[in-house]
């Protein structure tokens, strides 16, 4: 199998759960337990995924055993340029919904709604 760094990175990211974990780690370091929480999978399964990400150089962990947080390595951000395309498509999806909405709106509509009486929360 190809062992060059980029292939390792891409194959590590070929798995949806691992991509999700990377997206979470981009927001901040997290422990294995924290990473496992939202996925309805075992800590063991998450550890396995982490091992793959670690081998690809995408994440690192400090030495201290249990609570050691997982850290996303900066070089993953090189991949962000490719991922921006994905972000663009999401914006496009959102704006297509806005296209649809705009078509259903009356022609002569005020740009801002009339304020409702009663306080906002």
């Amino acid at each position: 199998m190809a062992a060059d760094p980029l292939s390792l990175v891409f194959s590590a990211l070929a798995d949806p759960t691992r991509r999700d974990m990377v997206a979470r780690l981009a927001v901040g370091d997290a422990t294995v337990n924290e990473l496992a929480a939202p996925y309805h999978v075992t800590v063991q399964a998450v550890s396995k995924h982490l091992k793959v990400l670690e081998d690809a150089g995408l994440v690192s962990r400090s030495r201290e055993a249990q609570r050691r947080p997982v850290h996303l390595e900066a070089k993953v951000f090189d991949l962000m340029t490719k991922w921006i395309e994905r972000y663009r498509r999401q914006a496009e999806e959102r704006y297509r919904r806005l296209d649809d909405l705009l078509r259903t709106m009356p022609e002569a509509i005020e740009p801002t709604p009339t304020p409702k009486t009663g306080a906002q929360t």
Partner: protein
Amino acid sequence: MTTTSTHETEITADADVPLVRIIREFDAPPAKVFRAHTDPELVVQWLGPRRHEMRIDHYDCRTGGSYRYLHVSDGNEFGFHGCFHEVRSPELIIQTFTFEGFPDGVALERLVLEDLGDGRTRLTATSLVDSFEGRDAFIASGMEDGVRESYERLDAVLAR
């Protein structure tokens, strides 16, 4: 004037400042596009990721107002909030934006609507964050929103 395929979203991530810029044109006059950004009953219909429920806590889109909304998915809630710094009908909204999962981070967002005539509008939305790391995290959190619905698309990108 009903086709949308010609209005592909354009997005750029500036290399020199931590900024993301989105440009998109709409077949609707600025007043309508502006209303779709200011009326919470309309905002909720398009702003959230497709498969997340978008729940508005409050959305008071006027100068000095504020907003908070949640994306709900599989029992997980992702909160977002900010302040409307300047709202000028029907052309400008300047607001702050914070993802509550990363509460120290804040983006400054500027929405400009340009009247192109013939009932068309060009929308330019810029997000300026306080660091490149923050910008990339911001992009990543946007990705996270759609990660479950768009695997195949990332696959296509990665396959290039």
